[in-house]
Protein backbone atom coordinates (compact mmCIF):
# COMPACT_ATOMS: atom_id res chain seq x y z
CA UNK A 1 0.00 0.00 0.00
CA UNK A 2 1.47 3.31 -1.09
CA UNK A 3 1.71 6.18 1.32
CA UNK A 4 -0.98 8.85 1.38
CA UNK A 5 -0.98 12.38 2.79
CA UNK A 6 -3.29 12.67 5.77
CA UNK A 7 -4.27 14.81 8.68
CA UNK A 8 -3.76 13.18 12.06
CA UNK A 9 -7.50 13.20 12.68
CA UNK A 10 -8.21 11.49 9.36
CA UNK A 11 -5.52 8.89 10.06
CA UNK A 12 -7.26 7.94 13.31
CA UNK A 13 -10.57 7.49 11.50
CA UNK A 14 -9.20 5.44 8.60
CA UNK A 15 -7.05 3.28 10.90
CA UNK A 16 -10.07 2.59 13.10
CA UNK A 17 -12.06 1.43 10.08
CA UNK A 18 -9.20 -0.81 9.02
CA UNK A 19 -9.05 -2.24 12.56
CA UNK A 20 -12.62 -3.40 12.10
CA UNK A 21 -14.44 -0.54 13.83
CA UNK A 22 -17.82 -0.07 12.14
CA UNK A 23 -19.48 2.06 14.81
CA UNK A 24 -18.59 5.66 15.51
CA UNK A 25 -20.54 8.01 17.76
CA UNK A 26 -19.44 11.58 18.28
CA UNK A 27 -20.19 15.23 18.50
CA UNK A 28 -18.18 17.92 16.68
CA UNK A 29 -15.59 20.01 18.51
CA UNK A 30 -12.42 21.72 17.29
CA UNK A 31 -9.69 20.50 16.89
CA UNK A 32 -10.93 16.90 16.37
CA UNK A 33 -13.87 17.50 14.03
CA UNK A 34 -12.16 15.83 11.04
CA UNK A 35 -12.44 12.46 12.80
CA UNK A 36 -16.22 12.77 12.72
CA UNK A 37 -16.27 14.35 9.24
CA UNK A 38 -14.17 11.48 7.84
CA UNK A 39 -16.37 8.87 9.50
CA UNK A 40 -19.49 10.58 8.14
CA UNK A 41 -18.11 10.20 4.62
CA UNK A 42 -16.74 6.66 4.92
CA UNK A 43 -19.07 4.70 7.21
CA UNK A 44 -22.16 4.77 4.96
CA UNK A 45 -20.06 3.45 2.07
CA UNK A 46 -18.89 0.37 4.01
CA UNK A 47 -22.07 -0.52 5.84
CA UNK A 48 -20.94 1.02 9.10
CA UNK A 49 -22.68 3.39 11.47
CA UNK A 50 -21.79 7.05 11.82
CA UNK A 51 -24.00 8.86 14.26
CA UNK A 52 -23.74 12.45 15.41
CA UNK A 53 -25.25 12.13 18.85
CA UNK A 54 -27.16 14.93 20.54
CA UNK A 55 -24.35 15.27 23.08
CA UNK A 56 -21.05 13.78 24.15
CA UNK A 57 -22.85 12.01 26.99
CA UNK A 58 -25.14 10.24 24.54
CA UNK A 59 -22.21 9.31 22.34
CA UNK A 60 -20.26 7.59 25.14
CA UNK A 61 -23.34 5.65 26.23
CA UNK A 62 -23.91 4.49 22.65
CA UNK A 63 -20.32 3.24 22.80
CA UNK A 64 -21.28 1.27 25.93
CA UNK A 65 -24.14 -0.34 24.05
CA UNK A 66 -22.17 -1.43 21.00
CA UNK A 67 -19.25 -2.66 23.10
CA UNK A 68 -21.67 -4.77 25.16
CA UNK A 69 -22.66 -6.46 21.93
CA UNK A 70 -19.01 -7.41 21.36
CA UNK A 71 -18.23 -5.05 18.47
CA UNK A 72 -15.38 -2.62 18.01
CA UNK A 73 -16.58 0.91 18.68
CA UNK A 74 -15.16 4.36 19.26
CA UNK A 75 -15.90 7.97 20.04
CA UNK A 76 -13.74 11.06 19.76
CA UNK A 77 -13.78 14.57 21.12
CA UNK A 78 -11.58 17.32 22.47
CA UNK A 79 -11.00 18.29 26.10
CA UNK A 80 -14.34 19.85 27.16
CA UNK A 81 -16.21 17.07 25.36
CA UNK A 82 -14.06 14.40 26.98
CA UNK A 83 -14.93 15.85 30.39
CA UNK A 84 -18.58 15.25 29.54
CA UNK A 85 -17.81 11.62 28.68
CA UNK A 86 -16.19 10.81 32.03
CA UNK A 87 -19.23 9.26 33.64
CA UNK A 88 -19.65 6.92 30.69
CA UNK A 89 -15.96 6.05 30.72
CA UNK A 90 -16.17 5.06 34.38
CA UNK A 91 -19.18 2.85 33.54
CA UNK A 92 -17.22 1.22 30.69
CA UNK A 93 -14.34 0.51 33.07
CA UNK A 94 -16.73 -0.75 35.74
CA UNK A 95 -18.35 -3.11 33.24
CA UNK A 96 -15.01 -4.31 31.80
CA UNK A 97 -15.89 -3.12 28.32
CA UNK A 98 -13.30 -2.46 25.61
CA UNK A 99 -13.69 0.75 23.60
CA UNK A 100 -11.59 3.51 22.06
CA UNK A 101 -11.94 7.09 23.24
CA UNK A 102 -9.92 9.72 21.36
CA UNK A 103 -9.02 13.03 23.00
CA UNK A 104 -7.46 15.61 20.66
CA UNK A 105 -6.63 18.01 23.48
CA UNK A 106 -7.10 21.77 23.48
CA UNK A 107 -6.33 24.41 26.10
CA UNK A 108 -8.35 24.49 29.31
CA UNK A 109 -9.80 24.53 31.87
CA UNK A 110 -13.43 25.28 31.05
CA UNK A 111 -14.10 26.09 27.43
CA UNK A 112 -10.45 27.16 27.25
CA UNK A 113 -9.39 27.56 23.66
CA UNK A 114 -9.03 25.63 20.43
CA UNK A 115 -5.24 25.55 20.26
CA UNK A 116 -3.19 22.48 21.29
CA UNK A 117 -2.60 21.37 24.86
CA UNK A 118 -1.57 18.37 26.97
CA UNK A 119 -3.33 19.45 30.11
CA UNK A 120 -5.72 16.47 30.23
CA UNK A 121 -2.86 14.18 31.29
CA UNK A 122 -4.20 13.84 34.84
CA UNK A 123 -7.73 13.25 33.59
CA UNK A 124 -6.56 10.53 31.19
CA UNK A 125 -4.10 8.73 33.47
CA UNK A 126 -5.55 9.23 36.95
CA UNK A 127 -9.15 8.31 36.39
CA UNK A 128 -11.18 11.28 35.29
CA UNK A 129 -14.36 9.50 36.19
CA UNK A 130 -15.16 8.09 39.62
CA UNK A 131 -13.96 4.86 41.15
CA UNK A 132 -10.77 2.80 41.02
CA UNK A 133 -9.91 2.20 37.40
CA UNK A 134 -7.36 2.80 34.67
CA UNK A 135 -7.53 3.43 30.97
CA UNK A 136 -4.80 2.31 28.63
CA UNK A 137 -3.50 5.68 27.44
CA UNK A 138 -1.49 5.98 24.22
CA UNK A 139 0.26 9.18 23.15
CA UNK A 140 1.06 9.48 19.41
CA UNK A 141 3.81 11.83 18.19
CA UNK A 142 3.28 11.65 14.42
CA UNK A 143 0.47 11.10 11.94
CA UNK A 144 1.87 7.60 11.38
CA UNK A 145 1.49 6.88 15.09
CA UNK A 146 -2.02 8.33 15.07
CA UNK A 147 -2.85 5.46 12.70
CA UNK A 148 -0.70 2.72 14.28
CA UNK A 149 -1.66 3.45 17.88
CA UNK A 150 -5.35 3.54 17.00
CA UNK A 151 -5.06 -0.09 15.90
CA UNK A 152 -2.94 -0.90 18.95
CA UNK A 153 -5.52 0.73 21.24
CA UNK A 154 -8.33 -1.47 19.88
CA UNK A 155 -6.18 -4.59 20.28
CA UNK A 156 -5.15 -3.77 23.86
CA UNK A 157 -8.70 -2.79 24.82
CA UNK A 158 -10.00 -6.15 23.60
CA UNK A 159 -7.13 -8.09 25.13
CA UNK A 160 -7.62 -6.66 28.63
CA UNK A 161 -11.32 -5.73 28.44
CA UNK A 162 -10.47 -2.13 29.25
CA UNK A 163 -11.38 1.16 27.60
CA UNK A 164 -8.36 2.69 25.85
CA UNK A 165 -7.67 6.33 25.19
CA UNK A 166 -5.66 7.89 22.40
CA UNK A 167 -4.37 11.11 23.96
CA UNK A 168 -3.38 13.43 21.12
CA UNK A 169 -3.38 17.21 20.87
CA UNK A 170 -4.48 19.86 18.40
CA UNK A 171 -1.23 19.85 16.42
CA UNK A 172 -1.29 16.05 16.04
CA UNK A 173 -4.88 16.20 14.86
CA UNK A 174 -4.35 19.01 12.37
CA UNK A 175 -0.87 18.24 11.08
CA UNK A 176 -0.51 16.61 7.65
CA UNK A 177 2.14 13.96 7.04
CA UNK A 178 2.65 11.00 4.74
CA UNK A 179 1.32 7.84 6.30
CA UNK A 180 1.38 4.14 5.49
CA UNK A 181 -2.06 2.94 6.47
CA UNK A 182 -2.36 -0.35 8.36
CA UNK A 183 -3.66 -3.40 6.54
CA UNK A 184 -7.37 -4.06 6.71
CA UNK A 185 -8.04 -6.70 9.36
CA UNK A 186 -11.14 -8.72 9.98
CA UNK A 187 -12.13 -8.18 13.59
CA UNK A 188 -12.47 -11.65 15.04
CA UNK A 189 -11.61 -11.45 18.73
CA UNK A 190 -13.49 -14.07 20.70
CA UNK A 191 -15.78 -12.33 23.21
CA UNK A 192 -17.73 -15.02 25.07
CA UNK A 193 -18.95 -12.38 27.55
CA UNK A 194 -20.74 -10.29 24.90
CA UNK A 195 -24.48 -9.90 24.54
CA UNK A 196 -24.96 -11.74 21.28
CA UNK A 197 -28.17 -13.62 21.96
CA UNK A 198 -28.29 -16.98 23.78
CA UNK A 199 -30.47 -18.69 21.17
CA UNK A 200 -31.58 -20.84 24.09
CA UNK A 201 -28.20 -22.58 24.12
CA UNK A 202 -26.42 -20.93 27.05
CA UNK A 203 -26.96 -18.85 30.16
CA UNK A 204 -27.42 -15.19 29.34
CA UNK A 205 -24.54 -12.79 29.83
CA UNK A 206 -24.85 -9.67 31.95
CA UNK A 207 -22.99 -6.41 31.35
CA UNK A 208 -23.23 -4.35 34.49
CA UNK A 209 -21.29 -2.11 36.85
CA UNK A 210 -23.70 -2.22 39.79
CA UNK A 211 -22.79 -4.56 42.65
CA UNK A 212 -25.01 -4.27 45.71
CA UNK A 213 -23.03 -6.78 47.79
CA UNK A 214 -19.83 -5.06 48.95
CA UNK A 215 -17.87 -8.33 49.00
CA UNK A 216 -18.68 -8.83 45.33
CA UNK A 217 -17.75 -5.27 44.40
CA UNK A 218 -14.46 -5.61 46.27
CA UNK A 219 -13.74 -8.86 44.45
CA UNK A 220 -14.45 -7.19 41.09
CA UNK A 221 -12.04 -4.37 41.92
CA UNK A 222 -9.32 -6.76 43.05
CA UNK A 223 -9.70 -8.87 39.92
CA UNK A 224 -9.48 -5.74 37.77
CA UNK A 225 -6.31 -4.59 39.52
CA UNK A 226 -4.70 -7.99 38.93
CA UNK A 227 -5.29 -7.36 35.23
CA UNK A 228 -3.81 -3.85 35.56
CA UNK A 229 -0.65 -5.45 37.04
CA UNK A 230 -0.29 -7.53 33.88
CA UNK A 231 -0.79 -4.43 31.74
CA UNK A 232 1.90 -2.58 33.72
CA UNK A 233 4.28 -5.51 33.33
CA UNK A 234 3.71 -6.34 29.66
CA UNK A 235 2.45 -3.32 27.76
CA UNK A 236 4.80 -0.41 28.52
CA UNK A 237 5.92 1.37 25.33
CA UNK A 238 8.44 4.17 25.02
CA UNK A 239 11.08 5.53 22.66
CA UNK A 240 14.65 6.29 23.69
CA UNK A 241 16.55 8.97 21.83
CA UNK A 242 20.29 9.57 22.40
CA UNK A 243 19.92 8.29 25.93
CA UNK A 244 23.00 6.04 26.22
CA UNK A 245 25.52 8.69 27.29
CA UNK A 246 23.06 11.38 28.37
CA UNK A 247 23.77 13.71 31.32
CA UNK A 248 20.38 15.38 31.02
CA UNK A 249 17.26 13.37 30.28
CA UNK A 250 14.28 15.09 28.72
CA UNK A 251 10.94 13.34 29.21
CA UNK A 252 8.22 14.38 26.78
CA UNK A 253 5.35 12.86 24.82
CA UNK A 254 3.43 13.82 21.69
CA UNK A 255 4.19 17.18 20.13
CA UNK A 256 6.43 18.15 23.08
CA UNK A 257 8.72 15.21 22.21
CA UNK A 258 9.13 16.44 18.64
CA UNK A 259 10.17 19.89 19.80
CA UNK A 260 12.47 18.28 22.39
CA UNK A 261 14.29 16.25 19.72
CA UNK A 262 15.19 19.48 17.95
CA UNK A 263 16.40 20.93 21.24
CA UNK A 264 18.48 17.82 21.95
CA UNK A 265 20.14 18.11 18.54
CA UNK A 266 20.97 21.74 19.35
CA UNK A 267 22.27 20.79 22.82
CA UNK A 268 24.49 18.06 21.37
CA UNK A 269 25.89 20.60 18.89
CA UNK A 270 26.91 22.69 21.91
CA UNK A 271 28.56 19.66 23.55
CA UNK A 272 25.81 18.99 26.08
CA UNK A 273 24.87 15.32 26.29
CA UNK A 274 21.11 15.37 26.30
CA UNK A 275 18.76 12.49 25.60
CA UNK A 276 15.06 11.76 25.55
CA UNK A 277 12.59 9.27 26.95
CA UNK A 278 9.33 9.54 25.05
CA UNK A 279 6.53 7.67 26.80
CA UNK A 280 4.22 6.14 24.18
CA UNK A 281 2.02 4.55 26.81
CA UNK A 282 1.16 7.13 29.50
CA UNK A 283 -0.64 4.37 31.35
CA UNK A 284 1.19 2.09 31.88
CA UNK A 285 3.88 4.73 32.49
CA UNK A 286 7.49 3.73 31.63
CA UNK A 287 8.67 3.76 35.24
CA UNK A 288 11.53 1.26 34.97
CA UNK A 289 13.51 3.09 32.29
CA UNK A 290 13.14 6.37 34.17
CA UNK A 291 14.32 4.76 37.41
CA UNK A 292 17.31 3.20 35.63
CA UNK A 293 18.14 6.46 33.86
CA UNK A 294 18.15 8.33 37.18
CA UNK A 295 21.35 6.45 38.08
CA UNK A 296 23.25 7.99 35.16
CA UNK A 297 21.94 11.53 34.65
CA UNK A 298 22.24 14.82 36.51
CA UNK A 299 18.51 15.33 36.28
CA UNK A 300 15.36 15.32 34.22
CA UNK A 301 13.49 17.98 32.28
CA UNK A 302 9.79 17.37 31.82
CA UNK A 303 8.56 19.15 28.70
CA UNK A 304 4.79 19.52 28.70
CA UNK A 305 1.98 21.62 27.30
CA UNK A 306 0.52 21.87 30.80
CA UNK A 307 1.36 23.45 34.14
CA UNK A 308 3.25 20.26 35.03
CA UNK A 309 1.28 17.01 35.29
CA UNK A 310 3.49 14.20 33.97
CA UNK A 311 6.32 15.66 36.09
CA UNK A 312 4.68 14.04 39.16
CA UNK A 313 4.89 10.60 37.56
CA UNK A 314 8.54 11.18 36.65
CA UNK A 315 9.33 12.05 40.27
CA UNK A 316 7.47 8.98 41.54
CA UNK A 317 9.24 6.76 39.00
CA UNK A 318 12.75 7.97 39.88
CA UNK A 319 11.84 8.13 43.57
CA UNK A 320 13.07 11.75 43.78
CA UNK A 321 16.68 10.58 43.34
CA UNK A 322 17.51 13.36 40.88
CA UNK A 323 16.05 16.83 40.32
CA UNK A 324 13.23 17.23 37.81
CA UNK A 325 12.43 20.60 36.27
CA UNK A 326 9.51 21.66 34.17
CA UNK A 327 9.68 23.35 30.78
CA UNK A 328 6.19 24.20 29.67
CA UNK A 329 3.86 26.52 27.81
CA UNK A 330 0.11 26.50 28.22
CA UNK A 331 -3.08 27.97 26.84
CA UNK A 332 -2.44 26.67 23.32
CA UNK A 333 1.21 27.73 23.18
CA UNK A 334 3.98 25.26 22.37
CA UNK A 335 7.47 25.42 23.90
CA UNK A 336 10.05 26.44 21.31
CA UNK A 337 13.24 24.38 20.80
CA UNK A 338 15.12 27.37 22.27
CA UNK A 339 13.07 27.24 25.47
CA UNK A 340 13.70 23.51 25.83
CA UNK A 341 17.40 24.02 25.10
CA UNK A 342 17.60 26.64 27.87
CA UNK A 343 15.99 24.18 30.32
CA UNK A 344 18.53 21.51 29.28
CA UNK A 345 21.42 23.96 29.73
CA UNK A 346 20.15 25.04 33.14
CA UNK A 347 19.90 21.41 34.28
CA UNK A 348 23.40 20.67 32.93
CA UNK A 349 24.80 23.72 34.74
CA UNK A 350 22.98 22.93 37.98
CA UNK A 351 20.86 26.08 37.72
CA UNK A 352 17.34 25.19 38.75
Amino acid sequence: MAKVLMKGNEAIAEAAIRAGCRHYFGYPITPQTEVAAYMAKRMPKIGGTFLQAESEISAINMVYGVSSAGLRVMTSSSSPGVSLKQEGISYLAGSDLPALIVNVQRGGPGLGGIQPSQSDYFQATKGGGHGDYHLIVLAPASVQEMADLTVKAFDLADKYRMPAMLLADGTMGQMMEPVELPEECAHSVDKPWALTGTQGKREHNIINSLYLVPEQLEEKNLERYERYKTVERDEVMYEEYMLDDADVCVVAFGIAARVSKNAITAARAKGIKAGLIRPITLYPFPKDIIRKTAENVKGFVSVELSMGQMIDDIRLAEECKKPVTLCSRVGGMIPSPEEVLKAIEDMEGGKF
Partner: protein
Amino acid sequence: MNSFKRVSLFAGHYGSGKTNLAVNYAIELKKHFYRVVIADLDIVNPYFRTKDSAELLEKAGIETVSPEFANSNVDLPALPSELYGVVQNRHRYAVLDIGGDDRGAYALGRFAPYILEENDFEMIYVANFCRPLTREPEEALEVMREIESAGGIPFTAIVNNTNLSHLTDEKTVAEGYAKSKRLADMSGLKLLFTSVEKRLAGNIDLENVFPIELQRKYYEIL
Protein backbone atom coordinates in the same frame (compact mmCIF):
# COMPACT_ATOMS: atom_id res chain seq x y z
CA MET B 1 1.85 31.03 -16.01
CA ASN B 2 0.39 33.70 -18.23
CA SER B 3 -2.81 35.71 -18.76
CA PHE B 4 -3.55 36.33 -15.09
CA LYS B 5 -7.15 37.04 -14.19
CA ARG B 6 -8.12 39.83 -11.82
CA VAL B 7 -9.45 37.34 -9.26
CA SER B 8 -7.84 33.93 -8.66
CA LEU B 9 -9.74 31.57 -6.40
CA PHE B 10 -8.15 28.45 -4.92
CA ALA B 11 -10.60 25.78 -3.85
CA GLY B 12 -10.48 22.02 -3.49
CA HIS B 13 -10.57 19.04 -1.19
CA TYR B 14 -9.73 19.58 2.45
CA GLY B 15 -5.94 19.52 2.90
CA SER B 16 -5.05 19.63 -0.80
CA GLY B 17 -2.61 22.52 -0.25
CA LYS B 18 -4.78 25.51 -1.14
CA THR B 19 -3.36 27.92 1.42
CA ASN B 20 0.25 27.17 0.55
CA LEU B 21 -0.46 27.53 -3.12
CA ALA B 22 -2.46 30.75 -2.68
CA VAL B 23 0.42 32.36 -0.77
CA ASN B 24 2.95 31.38 -3.45
CA TYR B 25 0.63 32.50 -6.22
CA ALA B 26 0.15 35.92 -4.62
CA ILE B 27 3.92 36.35 -4.41
CA GLU B 28 4.18 35.48 -8.11
CA LEU B 29 1.40 37.93 -8.98
CA LYS B 30 3.21 40.71 -7.14
CA LYS B 31 6.05 40.40 -9.65
CA HIS B 32 3.63 41.48 -12.38
CA PHE B 33 1.20 43.87 -10.67
CA TYR B 34 1.50 46.84 -8.36
CA ARG B 35 -1.33 45.98 -5.97
CA VAL B 36 -2.03 42.41 -4.88
CA VAL B 37 -4.30 41.31 -2.07
CA ILE B 38 -4.68 37.83 -0.58
CA ALA B 39 -7.87 37.00 1.27
CA ASP B 40 -8.45 34.09 3.61
CA LEU B 41 -12.02 32.81 3.29
CA ASP B 42 -11.36 29.63 5.20
CA ILE B 43 -14.03 29.25 7.85
CA VAL B 44 -13.44 25.49 8.18
CA ASN B 45 -9.89 25.12 9.42
CA PRO B 46 -8.88 27.36 12.32
CA TYR B 47 -5.35 25.91 12.47
CA PHE B 48 -3.50 26.48 9.19
CA ARG B 49 -4.03 29.87 7.62
CA THR B 50 -2.58 32.47 5.29
CA LYS B 51 -1.95 34.50 8.45
CA ASP B 52 0.83 32.04 9.30
CA SER B 53 2.69 33.65 6.37
CA ALA B 54 1.85 37.21 7.44
CA GLU B 55 5.48 38.25 7.77
CA LEU B 56 6.45 36.82 4.39
CA LEU B 57 3.47 38.44 2.66
CA GLU B 58 4.07 41.81 4.30
CA LYS B 59 7.70 41.76 3.20
CA ALA B 60 6.57 41.07 -0.35
CA GLY B 61 4.23 44.07 -0.17
CA ILE B 62 1.06 42.01 -0.45
CA GLU B 63 -2.08 43.17 1.31
CA THR B 64 -3.84 40.56 3.45
CA VAL B 65 -7.41 40.14 4.60
CA SER B 66 -8.03 37.46 7.24
CA PRO B 67 -10.92 36.58 9.49
CA GLU B 68 -10.64 38.72 12.59
CA PHE B 69 -10.25 35.72 14.85
CA ALA B 70 -7.76 33.74 12.76
CA ASN B 71 -5.00 32.19 14.89
CA SER B 72 -6.83 33.03 18.07
CA ASN B 73 -8.80 30.84 20.44
CA VAL B 74 -12.09 31.98 18.96
CA ASP B 75 -13.56 29.34 16.69
CA LEU B 76 -16.06 31.65 15.00
CA PRO B 77 -16.76 31.33 11.28
CA ALA B 78 -17.04 35.09 10.75
CA LEU B 79 -15.62 36.93 7.73
CA PRO B 80 -14.48 40.56 7.80
CA SER B 81 -16.28 43.28 5.85
CA GLU B 82 -13.07 44.18 3.95
CA LEU B 83 -13.71 41.07 1.90
CA TYR B 84 -16.26 43.01 -0.13
CA GLY B 85 -13.46 45.41 -1.02
CA VAL B 86 -11.43 42.53 -2.35
CA VAL B 87 -14.08 41.59 -4.90
CA GLN B 88 -15.45 45.09 -5.56
CA ASN B 89 -12.26 47.14 -5.83
CA ARG B 90 -11.10 46.20 -9.32
CA HIS B 91 -7.80 48.06 -9.06
CA ARG B 92 -6.21 45.21 -7.15
CA TYR B 93 -5.32 41.70 -8.21
CA ALA B 94 -6.88 39.34 -5.72
CA VAL B 95 -6.10 35.82 -4.55
CA LEU B 96 -8.87 34.11 -2.60
CA ASP B 97 -8.07 31.12 -0.39
CA ILE B 98 -11.30 29.15 -0.02
CA GLY B 99 -11.90 26.61 2.76
CA GLY B 100 -11.85 22.89 2.03
CA ASP B 101 -14.64 20.89 0.38
CA ASP B 102 -18.20 22.13 -0.06
CA ARG B 103 -18.35 23.13 3.63
CA GLY B 104 -15.57 25.63 3.01
CA ALA B 105 -17.02 26.91 -0.26
CA TYR B 106 -20.31 28.02 1.29
CA ALA B 107 -18.50 31.16 2.47
CA LEU B 108 -17.93 32.09 -1.16
CA GLY B 109 -21.63 32.26 -1.98
CA ARG B 110 -22.23 35.86 -0.97
CA PHE B 111 -19.28 37.14 -3.02
CA ALA B 112 -20.06 35.01 -6.06
CA PRO B 113 -22.45 37.53 -7.74
CA TYR B 114 -19.74 40.26 -7.81
CA ILE B 115 -17.12 37.86 -9.13
CA LEU B 116 -19.41 36.46 -11.81
CA GLU B 117 -20.56 39.94 -12.87
CA GLU B 118 -17.00 41.22 -13.33
CA ASN B 119 -16.19 37.97 -15.17
CA ASP B 120 -12.42 38.24 -14.85
CA PHE B 121 -11.68 35.29 -12.60
CA GLU B 122 -9.94 31.93 -12.53
CA MET B 123 -11.65 29.41 -10.27
CA ILE B 124 -8.91 26.88 -9.65
CA TYR B 125 -9.38 23.32 -8.40
CA VAL B 126 -6.32 22.31 -6.39
CA ALA B 127 -5.74 18.59 -6.90
CA ASN B 128 -3.65 16.39 -4.65
CA PHE B 129 -4.11 12.76 -5.62
CA CYS B 130 -2.16 11.59 -2.56
CA ARG B 131 -5.12 12.48 -0.36
CA PRO B 132 -6.96 9.30 0.66
CA LEU B 133 -10.48 10.41 -0.34
CA THR B 134 -9.38 11.84 -3.70
CA ARG B 135 -7.01 9.18 -5.01
CA GLU B 136 -8.72 9.02 -8.40
CA PRO B 137 -9.98 11.67 -10.87
CA GLU B 138 -13.55 10.32 -10.45
CA GLU B 139 -13.48 11.11 -6.73
CA ALA B 140 -11.95 14.53 -7.37
CA LEU B 141 -14.68 15.31 -9.91
CA GLU B 142 -17.31 14.52 -7.28
CA VAL B 143 -15.65 16.99 -4.87
CA MET B 144 -15.45 19.61 -7.66
CA ARG B 145 -19.19 19.38 -8.29
CA GLU B 146 -19.96 19.64 -4.55
CA ILE B 147 -17.80 22.76 -4.25
CA GLU B 148 -19.35 24.39 -7.30
CA SER B 149 -22.88 23.94 -6.04
CA ALA B 150 -21.91 25.24 -2.57
CA GLY B 151 -19.87 28.23 -3.74
CA GLY B 152 -21.89 29.26 -6.77
CA ILE B 153 -18.87 29.69 -9.07
CA PRO B 154 -17.93 27.13 -11.72
CA PHE B 155 -14.36 25.87 -11.88
CA THR B 156 -12.34 27.17 -14.85
CA ALA B 157 -8.99 25.45 -14.28
CA ILE B 158 -7.14 22.67 -12.47
CA VAL B 159 -3.76 22.78 -10.75
CA ASN B 160 -1.80 19.62 -10.11
CA ASN B 161 -0.53 20.02 -6.55
CA THR B 162 -0.05 16.29 -5.94
CA ASN B 163 2.40 15.86 -3.08
CA LEU B 164 3.36 13.66 -0.15
CA SER B 165 4.88 16.47 1.89
CA HIS B 166 8.64 15.88 2.37
CA LEU B 167 8.42 12.44 0.73
CA THR B 168 7.31 13.87 -2.63
CA ASP B 169 9.49 12.70 -5.52
CA GLU B 170 9.45 12.91 -9.32
CA LYS B 171 7.21 9.85 -9.54
CA THR B 172 4.63 11.36 -7.15
CA VAL B 173 4.42 14.47 -9.31
CA ALA B 174 4.29 12.54 -12.60
CA GLU B 175 1.49 10.26 -11.39
CA GLY B 176 -0.42 13.29 -10.16
CA TYR B 177 0.09 14.96 -13.53
CA ALA B 178 -1.40 11.99 -15.39
CA LYS B 179 -4.42 11.95 -13.10
CA SER B 180 -4.79 15.73 -13.38
CA LYS B 181 -4.79 15.39 -17.16
CA ARG B 182 -7.56 12.84 -16.92
CA LEU B 183 -9.50 15.11 -14.56
CA ALA B 184 -9.04 17.95 -17.07
CA ASP B 185 -10.39 15.75 -19.86
CA MET B 186 -13.33 14.56 -17.80
CA SER B 187 -14.30 18.07 -16.70
CA GLY B 188 -13.42 19.89 -19.92
CA LEU B 189 -11.13 22.29 -18.04
CA LYS B 190 -7.54 23.34 -18.68
CA LEU B 191 -4.63 22.16 -16.55
CA LEU B 192 -3.15 25.51 -15.51
CA PHE B 193 0.13 24.30 -14.01
CA THR B 194 1.87 21.72 -11.83
CA SER B 195 3.09 23.13 -8.54
CA VAL B 196 6.22 21.55 -7.10
CA GLU B 197 8.36 22.28 -4.07
CA LYS B 198 11.44 24.29 -5.10
CA ARG B 199 13.90 21.52 -4.17
CA LEU B 200 12.29 19.27 -6.81
CA ALA B 201 11.27 21.74 -9.50
CA GLY B 202 14.51 21.39 -11.46
CA ASN B 203 14.00 17.64 -11.90
CA ILE B 204 10.46 17.86 -13.23
CA ASP B 205 10.17 17.62 -16.98
CA LEU B 206 6.57 18.75 -17.45
CA GLU B 207 4.80 21.71 -19.07
CA ASN B 208 4.09 24.74 -16.84
CA VAL B 209 5.89 23.90 -13.61
CA PHE B 210 5.31 26.40 -10.79
CA PRO B 211 7.99 26.10 -8.08
CA ILE B 212 6.63 26.80 -4.59
CA GLU B 213 8.02 27.43 -1.14
CA LEU B 214 6.34 25.51 1.71
CA GLN B 215 5.06 27.08 4.90
CA ARG B 216 6.13 24.82 7.72
CA LYS B 217 5.91 25.26 11.45
CA TYR B 218 8.91 24.44 13.60
CA TYR B 219 7.15 21.66 15.45
CA GLU B 220 6.32 19.88 12.19
CA ILE B 221 9.97 19.08 11.56
CA LEU B 222 11.21 15.47 12.21
